[in-house]
């Protein structure tokens, strides 16, 4: 009885021993198959960047790389293109949607994780999942036909009472309020609520339960527990979730294209009719576009691709880091 043998030691320390694996020929084929399936994704992302860049060259040469990103014109007959206004418009719409979506999504995440009785929780998680599965065209047409009237009311109220804030000003007193960045942003907000909610729920669920209970046991109120334990714990992850939502909002196409009164120039008056985004530019101009204009649309798509890629990878890196730390 050799008590010092490595197997016994491992047994005592509860360390699983390494499994000796023989890699058969079948295994090798199987692994190659899986690896090549995995590589398809690499090719798609690499191919997207490469081919969009190649096809974007003619328009960028004609319009000039610098002026493509620093002017706001769209004149396919002359070959003059510039997307500065649309880049700003994209960011305006995404920002409005974050302002609406973030409080709602975090409230929802807290409600599902902390507040709701079990029966309501089931209804609510299903609702959020279903909201995520709803096609964007449905959001778009519902927003256009059902949501515009009440939102115009909200917009005129905001302008009437809060016009001290520059955000709520209009270019002229009775400018039309339909089809504005504000309305589009609100509809997009409802579309990004599910992703922000589900990611921040996952992050907050990783908070050690003992810490939350300790806070309550010390006599803290439930809000005290959330404010002092849950939110500080989940801060980085929730930031990541919000960034993910921002990335989705940047790329949203059809709902924006349906609702907005499209303009090439940036419209700083958020409550007022008119605005635009890169994605809606592509959807609106593409069906009638010819040679050079198509190339310009592809260049715009490339800019959108780069923008969303950066935002998404940043967001995922943040979320992933918190999950490893937990």
């Amino acid at each position, binding site marked *: 009885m050799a008590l010092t043998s490595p197997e016994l030691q491992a047994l005592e320390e509860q360390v699983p021993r390494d*499994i000796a694996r023989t*890699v*058969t020929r079948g*295994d090798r084929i*199987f*692994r190659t*198959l*899986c*690896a090549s*399936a*995995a590589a*398809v*994704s*690499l090719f*798609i*992302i690499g191919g*997207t960047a490469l081919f969009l860049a190649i*096809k974007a060259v003619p328009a960028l040469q004609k319009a000039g790389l610098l002026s493509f990103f620093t002017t706001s014109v769209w004149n396919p007959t002359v070959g003059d293109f510039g997307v500065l206004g649309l880049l700003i418009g994209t960011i305006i719409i995404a920002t409005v949607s974050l302002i609406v979506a973030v409080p*709602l999504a975090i*409230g929802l995440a807290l*409600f*599902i994780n902390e507040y709701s009785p079990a029966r309501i929780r089931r209804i*609510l998680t*299903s*609702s959020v999942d*279903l909201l995520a*599965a*709803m*096609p964007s*065209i449905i959001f778009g*047409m*519902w927003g256009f*036909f059902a949501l515009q009237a*009440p939102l115009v*009311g909200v917009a005129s109220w905001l302008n009437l009472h809060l016009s001290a804030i520059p955000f709520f000003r209009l270019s002229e007193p009775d400018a039309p309020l339909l089809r504005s960045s504000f309305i589009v942003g609100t509809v997009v907000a*409802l579309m990004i609520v599910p992703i922000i909610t589900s990611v921040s729920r996952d992050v907050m669920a990783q908070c050690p339960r003992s810490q939350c209970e300790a806070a309550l046991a*010390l*006599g*803290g*109120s*439930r809000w*005290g527990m*959330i404010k002092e334990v849950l939110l500080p714990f989940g801060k980085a992850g929730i930031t990541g979730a919000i960034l993910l939502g921002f*990335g*989705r909002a940047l*790329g*949203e*196409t*059809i709902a924006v294209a*349906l609702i907005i009164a499209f303009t090439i120039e940036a419209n700083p008056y958020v409550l007022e009719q008119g605005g635009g985004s890169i*994605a809606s530019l*592509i959807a609106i101009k593409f*069906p009638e576009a010819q040679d050079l204009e198509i190339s310009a649309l*592809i260049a715009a*798509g490339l800019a*959108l691709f780069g923008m*969303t*890629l950066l*935002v*998404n990878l940043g967001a995922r890196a943040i979320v992933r880091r918190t999950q490893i730390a937990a």
Partner: protein
Amino acid sequence: MSLLDERPVDETPVPEPQDQEPIEEQVPFRPRALVRSERVEILLAAAAGVTGSGVMCLLFDWTHALTFAIWALLIFLVSIYLLARDSQSPIVATDRLITTLVWTSGGIAVAVLAWMLGYVVVKGIAGLNYEYLTSDLSKVGPLDDGGGVFHAIVGTLEQMLIASVLSIPIAILTAVYLHEIRGRLAGIVRFVIDAMSGLPSIVAGLFIYTVWVLQGQGPSGLAAGLALAILMIPTVTRTAEEMLKTIDDGLRESALALGAPQWRSVMQVVLPTARSGLITASILGVARAVGETAPVLLTAFGSSSINWSPFNGPQADLPLYIYQLLRQPNPAQIARAWSGALVLVLLVLILFVLARVIGERGARVRGGSR
């Protein structure tokens, strides 16, 4: 406000006589249960909200239900805060204020969904009949009655079939690579799947447009299927990997202990055990792709007559059918778009319920492995 501030015990009347046993000690203090005085406060605040908002609506001639709801909520919030602050403490008052806000956000989510579904049903149900489901738009003028959605349904089914056949095997094998094989590329692949899951759908459409449609293949249902497959891969891979994580390691080890090589353990033990989860993952991917408009706009172009062949010529599908009708300014076309929207929503609902049912049955079969 510190965490240590005590949440006051409720102030319900306590029996006066000192010599009796104190009653509170027998009833355990449950911080989350509402006592009677708190219920009264909530009722009072609700009454204040409804009457206050009602009076304002009458005074200022407001007619919209939403205006009433917003003001009622605001007055309710203020009164619940003040009542709790008066009877207990600012900390309790803040807590109750936040509780109300959190419940409100839950209510908003459910209300938005119900409003949207209800609106689509109300607007779309009138035009939905047998003729609508079985005819296309080729012989109908823009102002005429009649016409239907059949060509779009055929297009949707064919494109979804193509997208599923292409993307689901790739996605599941990728998930196997990430979780079972854990190869050298796993880190990079996970990174790329992350990047793909945030890819705007219109960019996927542009990609297929440049590498397929522009290369002499022309628009077709197959091109749309390719673009939709790109959108499905990350969704299915992610969900499938989550499902593989729920499989007990004991199963893998048992298979290996019986002398099975890895590929047999994966193909005959792990994947069959995860089957229902993998089906759920696939259905969720289909549900995501079926509602995409933008990539189909760039790859299949849409059409008003039926095109049975997905390999040749423009083809319609449901979201694109709705989008193209909505851009025409006349009521008959918009009514058709609403009926199309109802068909699309029903399709998504069926897929959603199917995914739920299969997923839950699978979770029961797997038992408490997670």
